[in-house]
């Protein structure tokens, strides 16, 4: 029953955010209609980080307690996370082209997001390369911890590297209340979506493990 509530709340919030982004919020002066991508970009970036934070916490818990549920949660969060990070990169490119004229730019946020993508990739790669499940889970947890600690330093280095980008993603006049509302609702909607996906993905992973153990018992 709990899961159905989550699904409907998520759907309602997502539709609400869509309405706010396309109908309610006023068009921004400088960038025009394309600026609305902002309401997609920030949630994607937020999810990418939130997901990895959960991976980090669950990795620590897994190494400390060795319960498979922590590993299942970490894996699932990483999977949603890599989708979100890929989404952030795609949206970043689709925003860069109209605004700056190029598909890709080595601007701090995009660059840091790309590095995050590779860290997520490493998280999965180490599981396949490790040979056995338990070792893979252990190694992935190490990546989860080291990777998360790395993130602030990556952000710092990439920001310092490029300095303040001249045509940066800062709006003249800051965020009007209507824009803030739209942003917050969007963030909330995507966060609930994250929880929904996380719950279902973890359940699938644990069911798969359970089936393997049942099959082992049947011989």
């Amino acid at each position, binding site marked *: 029953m709990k899961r159905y509530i989550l699904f409907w709340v998520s759907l309602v919030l997502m539709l609400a955010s869509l309405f706010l982004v396309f109908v309610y919020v006023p068009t921004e002066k400088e960038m025009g209609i394309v600026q609305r991508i902002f309401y997609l970009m920030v949630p994607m970036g937020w999810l990418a980080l939130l997901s990895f934070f959960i991976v980090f916490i669950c990795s620590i818990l897994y190494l400390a307690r060795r319960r498979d549920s922590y590993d299942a949660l970490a894996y699932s969060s990483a999977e949603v996370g890599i989708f979100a990070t890929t989404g952030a990169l795609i949206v970043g490119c689709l925003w860069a082209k109209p605004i700056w004229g190029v598909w890709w730019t080595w601007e701090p946020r995009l660059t840091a997001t790309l590095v995050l993508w590779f860290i997520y990739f490493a998280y999965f790669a180490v599981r396949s390369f490790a040979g056995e499940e338990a070792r893979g889970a252990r*190694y992935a947890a*190490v990546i989860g911890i*080291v990777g998360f600690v790395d993130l602030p330093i990556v952000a710092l280095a990439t920001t310092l590297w490029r300095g303040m980008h001249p045509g940066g993603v800062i709006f003249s006049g800051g965020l009007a209340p209507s824009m803030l509302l739209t942003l917050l609702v969007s963030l909330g909607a995507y966060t609930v979506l994250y929880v929904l996906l996380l719950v279902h993905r973890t359940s699938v992973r644990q069911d798969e493990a359970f089936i393997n153990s049942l099959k082992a018992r049947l011989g």
Partner: protein
Amino acid sequence: MSFLKKALAITRKDVLSELRTKEIIFSALVFTVLVIVTFNFAFSASQETTALVAPGILWVTFTFAGVLSLNRAFIPEKEENCLEGLMSSPVSREVIYVGKMLGSLLFMLIIEIIALPVFALLFNLPVFSAPLVTVTFLATVGFVAVGTLFSALAVNTKAREMVLPILFLPMVVPIIISAVKASGLALAGESWGALASWLQIIGAFDAIFLVVSFWVFAFVIEE
């Protein structure tokens, strides 16, 4: 025996065995010089462009050479099963980490000490400035801190030579960025003040990852 003494015993073992075969240092060194020369052909260089691309070439070279040497770090342990021997002795996992890390650090520093003058010669740049040496040393410490951890991890996987760069390179991006920027400034003769923020990033990276790798290492080599 104190912690440091035990760790240095491990380092000494690595150094002695390397002195006998010289395989890590020699191959990494030849590789380094080859890469520098190849880059020279890649960029048809005038004196101005040389100054621009030089720091990048230097650090790409050191990165690849570092991966090469780190790849070898745990292979003797794995192949001769020394690791089990080490672990069943009353030596803590952290001692193994520090010992191996110091060994890899020493090897990388030796490679860099020899490669830098070659680099200076081929690119006609002043390399023995204190800022450049400091940047190189600090960045290498960071490389090796994280690299030793992942090297131990990679040695237990299939396709170990591929695994190390895939895991390791994204993590050390901050060092590479900072080292390239700081080296560029150092080669241009800038003062310490200009390099300060980059050195701070490298320093912070070193401190954080020495601690984190130290703590997490045990989870990698438990078997």
